[in-house]
């Protein structure tokens, strides 16, 4: 994969500004993760690379902060009764297998078409997946809001209801989040596909959470919480793999973790104040904005592959900066929606309790 000695030699020098920067990025990413179960990785890795961290070290160090963060987040949300540990572990293990397969596809594309080809493949997959899945999630959230059904219990999709009726003897497992039994012959391939796509677009939750909601019939609140279990399982396996090759810069991982553990606790608390459709609002919004960020880079990769006319270096630099800016904006907007929804929920609860107090006494 790489030279172990060289990896350690390339670890960056940390000054106060860098530490503060990583802490803040970690906090915002953690806040969003605590709420929707994922997010942040798409900013964390480029944020580290912008500091001069080599790509693979950035990916490895991000992953090594992800699994302890997800562990704390899932424990917190389990206290609120939102986690389906069994589903998280089943999907996590099958997703890990998907990641390995997805990574091998990535490697073969890179070997055949080089860095630009690999980047183009990742960006196109990112845009297509996020446009379809993110668009649908956001559409569903808007539909719920406009229909005035925000207080109603979520209705399972027809697909999820149908899958739950299929009885394959010897493979049926009861999942509390679905309040139903589902064959592992469905959950394992879904987990595998999630992992495969996660290896490609690097944000498994963008696939995992919607697939739990719309394909398996898991309520949004439990899907986003169980995603943290998946992130833990996948992150632990992935981190170990990278650590075996000496790619994890533990200083970077732990500084990001320092901020993200403040954030993830806050995001998890936030879920207790909001209606379930808010999970879809935050997730859909981030996904749709991020797709533009990656979409902007497609012409750059096309030009590097000589598929279109060459793009000037200055334009490439500008597109890269704008792309990163859009990603950071998506994450900040997500964090803003979470904090706002949480503040509104907290205020409404205070008012309700005050009214109750007046009535009773």
């Amino acid at each position: 994969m790489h030279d172990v000695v060289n990896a350690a030699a390339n670890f960056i020098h940390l000054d106060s500004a860098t530490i503060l920067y990583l802490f803040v990025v970690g906090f915002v990413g953690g806040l969003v993760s605590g709420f929707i179960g994922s997010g942040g990785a798409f900013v964390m890795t480029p944020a580290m690379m912008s500091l001069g961290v080599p790509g693979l070290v950035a990916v490895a160090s991000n992953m090594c902060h992800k699994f302890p963060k997800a562990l704390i987040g899932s424990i917190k949300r389990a206290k609120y009764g939102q986690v389906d540990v069994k589903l998280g572990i089943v999907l996590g293990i099958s997703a890990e297998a998907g990641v390995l397969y997805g990574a091998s596809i990535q490697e073969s594309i890179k070997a055949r078409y080089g860095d630009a080809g690999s980047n183009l493949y990742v960006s196109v997959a990112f845009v297509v997946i996020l446009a379809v899945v993110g668009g649908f999630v956001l559409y569903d959230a808007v539909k719920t809001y406009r229909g005035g059904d925000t207080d109603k219990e979520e209705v399972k999709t027809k697909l999820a209801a149908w899958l739950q009726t299929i009885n394959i003897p010897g493979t049926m497992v009861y999942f509390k989040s679905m309040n139903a039994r589902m064959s592992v012959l469905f959950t394992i391939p879904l987990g595998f596909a999630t992992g495969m796509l996660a290896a490609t677009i690097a944000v498994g939750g963008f696939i995992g959470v919607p697939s739990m909601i719309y394909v398996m019939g898991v309520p949004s609140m439990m899907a986003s919480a169980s995603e943290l279990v998946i992130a833990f399982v996948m992150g632990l396996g992935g981190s170990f793999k990278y650590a075996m090759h000496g790619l994890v810069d533990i200083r970077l991982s732990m500084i990001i973790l320092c901020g993200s553990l403040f954030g993830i606790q806050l995001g998890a608390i936030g879920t207790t104040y909001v209606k379930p459709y808010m999970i879809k609002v935050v997730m859909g919004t981030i996904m749709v904005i991020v797709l533009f960020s990656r979409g902007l880079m497609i012409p750059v990769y096309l030009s590097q592959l000589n598929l279109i006319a060459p793009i000037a270096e200055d334009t490439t630099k500008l597109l890269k900066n704008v792309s990163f800016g859009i990603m950071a904006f998506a994450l900040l907007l997500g964090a803003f929606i979470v904090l706002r929804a949480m503040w509104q929920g907290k205020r409404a609860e205070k008012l309700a309790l005050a009214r109750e107090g007046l009535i009773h006494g």
Partner: protein
Amino acid sequence: MGDYSSQKKKPYLAALTWGMVSVAIYATLLTQQDLINANFANGGVYAFLPIGAAFLFSLVHGSFTGHFWTLLGVEASKKHKEAK
């Protein structure tokens, strides 16, 4: 009408204890960077070092951050707790 969260006993001691341990491990991480880089990124069986450190930091700092928000009065919705 008081703040309902303030009626409960706040975990000052726990927050302080976990906070101090958290500061200690982060101080070690930042002051011993050369030693850590020299040992944690060796690959192979040394992979257990960064993984173990991640578990240790998450336990210590996670406990601290949990108590930190409780001290600030940022807690889960009471309605939600009752629903459990």
